């Protein structure tokens, strides 16, 4: 049977199962915001793609408990880390089945070959799949795995050893990320003559298997009957791709979908009053901030930075920009993340004291630029508005602000430039729940000229981060990160502004759905009453 024909056959079976059948199949419809870029997670970087690929279709060696950033065994049942922190040995789960789809029937269970293939494809340019689908593997590169992984060895069919070039304690958290999804080596071998289809017609071990996809319209999945952790309570999962947030809301009201992604903040109040809608809310794993360029006067003086931070009325920003759906940030990591230092005291909002401090530091008649991002993000729904509020706050302490903005790509580029002027509004949403993913990526010396938009390189802070990265003792790491946050507050490279609250409206019929702190949408375990 040709691929196309077999797909047709599969979909008609699926349609028959959905439409007919004396026993009503449970079908959950999710109004998603866009089309996935493809179905091989390692090739792409957006949450929209991960929602449709890694989350339903695939598993990873370790995974996040739904609704948290706690890591639990998944395809690996257990693991050990060597004394020197450079060898990770994973014991794989046995009896895990890959999806039997209309385009592929597996003949063997998941084993070590699949793990090796999934990483080799990304890291080894000689792998026959490396260049397929324009292979660029951005996350694999961004997490620095090309230099971190020395080799991956198959000890036996169910044991794999990762040998690293240096100790790296966030490694386990990295392996829970979407790009580390495990694909079938057997399927890859079978598709050698049609490699592109491998990335479009996925075969995974995940709770749902793909049935059909039409770009910008629908994605249809059916529950994997052989799922190793038990079949999902719903039988079918449909993504109704609906780019406009107001339209998604109307579809939720009309009963055309059960869960909707990314509501308009302005609609939340109305949603909370609708008896047919449950409005779930959770603190997001993110931070919105303003990064001074700490290499330029007067922003190279921590006291000036602190004084400016004291001039910002953050609560007013929460009320006006986040419409109350957020909380004032005092640390660079969100409160839901382990090692968050609640002992840190935020600089008080005190314009008079700020003005005096600035005068003491000899800063008078300061005029500066504030960069406002041109895009909307959960950590900053309206950067322009935020910049205007800060502009007014700074005017009160005698600082004149000029707000500038650029097209997003250019903004990203120019704001990384060490010679950039003023302070730039930015933010970050966590990838894996590890504090290093905030503190290391955004504030280490290594990040200067890149993701470290404050161009801030503090030896004391950097040593703590490096020590924490090499330690595998969670208590010790917690202590180091807590200390690092104290230094951060003292040195004030950023004005920490807000952590947003993520809202997701769902139909009252939906049970057990949890908001994911990493911003994904996971329907395993979700039921419909």
């Amino acid at each position, binding site marked *: 049977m040709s691929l196309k024909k077999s797909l*047709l056959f599969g*979909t*008609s079976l*699926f*349609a028959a199962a*959905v*439409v007919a059948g004396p026993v009503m199949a449970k*079908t959950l*419809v999710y109004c998603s915001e*866009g089309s996935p*870029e*493809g179905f091989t997670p390692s*090739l792409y*970087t957006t949450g929209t793609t991960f929602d449709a690929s890694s989350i339903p279709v695939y598993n990873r060696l370790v995974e996040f408990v739904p609704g948290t950033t706690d890591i639990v065994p998944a395809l690996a049942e257990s693991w050990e880390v060597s004394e020197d922190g450079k060898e990770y040995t994973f014991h794989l789960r046995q009896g895990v089945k890959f999806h039997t789809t209309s385009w592929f029937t597996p003949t063997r269970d998941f084993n070590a070959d699949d793990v090796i293939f999934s990483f080799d494809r990304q890291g080894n340019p000689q792998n026959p799949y490396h260049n397929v*689908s*324009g292979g*660029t593997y*951005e996350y694999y*590169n*961004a997490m620095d795995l090309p230099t971190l992984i020395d080799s991956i060895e198959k000890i036996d069919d169910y044991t794999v050893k990762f040998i690293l070039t240096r100790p790296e304690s966030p490694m386990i958290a990295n392996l829970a990320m979407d790009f580390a999804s495990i694909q079938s080596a057997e399927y890859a071998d079978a598709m050698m003559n049609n490699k592109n289809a491998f*990335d479009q017609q996925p075969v995974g071990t995940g709770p749902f298997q793909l049935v*059909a996809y*039409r*770009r*910008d*319209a*629908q994605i*249809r999945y059916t529950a994997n009957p052989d799922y190793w952790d038990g079949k999902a309570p719903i039988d079918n999962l*449909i993504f*109704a*791709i*609906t*780019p*406009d947030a*107001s*339209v998604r809301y*109307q*579809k939720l*009201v*009309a009963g*055309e979908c059960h869960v909707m992604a990314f509501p308009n903040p302005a609609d939340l109040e109305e949603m909370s009053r609708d008896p047919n809608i449950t409005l779930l809310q959770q603190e997001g794993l993110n931070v919105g901030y303003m990064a001074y360029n700490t290499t330029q006067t007067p922003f190279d003086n921590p006291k000036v930075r602190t004084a400016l931070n004291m001039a910002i009325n953050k609560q007013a920003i929460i009320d006006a920009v986040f419409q109350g759906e957020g909380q004032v940030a005092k640390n660079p990591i969100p409160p839901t993340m382990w090692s968050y230092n609640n002992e840190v005291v935020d600089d008080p909002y005190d314009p008079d004291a700020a003005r005096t401090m600035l005068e003491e530091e000899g800063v008078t008649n300061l005029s500066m630029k504030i960069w406002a991002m041109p895009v909307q993000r959960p950590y900053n729904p309206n950067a322009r508005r935020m910049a205007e509020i800060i502009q007014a706050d700074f005017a009160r302490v005698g600082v004149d602000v000029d707000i500038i903005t*650029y*097209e*997003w*790509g*250019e903004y*990203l*580029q120019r704001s*990384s430039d060490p010679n950039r002027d003023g302070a730039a509004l*930015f*933010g*970050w949403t966590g990838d894996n729940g590890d504090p290093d993913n905030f503190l290391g*990526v955004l504030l280490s010396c290594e990040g200067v000229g*890149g*993701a470290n938009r404050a161009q801030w390189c503090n030896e004391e802070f950097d040593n703590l981060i490096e020590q924490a990265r090499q330690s595998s003792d969670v208590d010790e790491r917690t202590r180091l990160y807590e200390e690092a946050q104290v230094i951060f507050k003292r040195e004030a490279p950023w004005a920490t502004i807000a952590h947003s609250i993520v809202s997701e409206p769902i139909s009252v019929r939906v049970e057990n759905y949890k908001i994911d702190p990493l911003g994904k949408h996971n329907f395993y375990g979700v039921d419909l009453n």
Partner: protein
Amino acid sequence: MLRLILKKLGLLIPTFIGVTLTSFFFIRLLPGDPILLLAGERGVSPERYNELMIQFGYNDPIWQQYLTYLGNLFQGDLGASIVTKQPVLQEFMTLFPATVELGVCAMLFAVIVGLPAGIIAAVKRGKTLDHTVMTTALAGYSMPIFWWGLLLIILFSGMLGWTPVSGRISFMYWIEPVTGFMLIDTLLSDEPGAFGSAVSHLILPTIVLGTIPLAVIARQTRSAMLEVLDEDYVRTARAKGLSNFRVIGIHALRNALIPVITIIGLQIGVLFAGAILTESIFSWPGVGKWMVDSIFRRDYPVVQGGLLMIAVIVMIVNLIVDLMYGLINPKIRHTE
């Protein structure tokens, strides 16, 4: 006639080259960089950036990139999307039927309603009916599509529940694309109720997309009719004692149609522009939304390829319109 077609086709060649030039260079003139946009907040190291520039061929001199693009184009290769890594032509062909289906329905709606409205307004010149039609047309012409679409959704789908909110068909059905046109595919399939579902999903987007062309057609028909109604041959036809219907429907309308057809041809471009918004509101899987997304992501191959395909289609439609003049008015055919 054949010579005329060839001559017109020959004129399309410089236009075609012009479109490749503008689509290629304009998207590159926009600030922003596809690689940086792909990397987002995380940023990308200079080494990695260079690797990607080489991989995508953006390190070559710009004229060389253009020549490579043109060379590939003549081999039928529009390149692959930077974002999805899929061939542009394949993406276009999957999405285009949805746009055509919506565009044709919107145009039919505009003509079927707009033409009679214009005729009635002309015949009832200066009366209340004329003013009503023309005021409505002006309102329709001024309607922001996005607002109009949401308004109709909230009223007909949200409050009254008469029509579905968005999409091409209910999620209850999965219709395998044969032609890509949902109305035809649902008829070909044996699914009971699928055709009805497809029709109901078309109603609101058709009205929204058809509103502006409708208003333009109605106004144009009215003024063209007013002009010919004063002509001698119309008076002669009346003098011969022909019925009002024959005078207006045949003698006057046929002559009034020429400018109207020009306008209909020109509205094809407007339809594509309107499709961008309409498709976004109604989650319609067509090329309009695809193009906008690609512009925001600076997905150069998609913008170039998509613009070129759309331009070629608009050119062909206009060519057909040109040729149709001859069919309606033999005078034009002879002078050509």
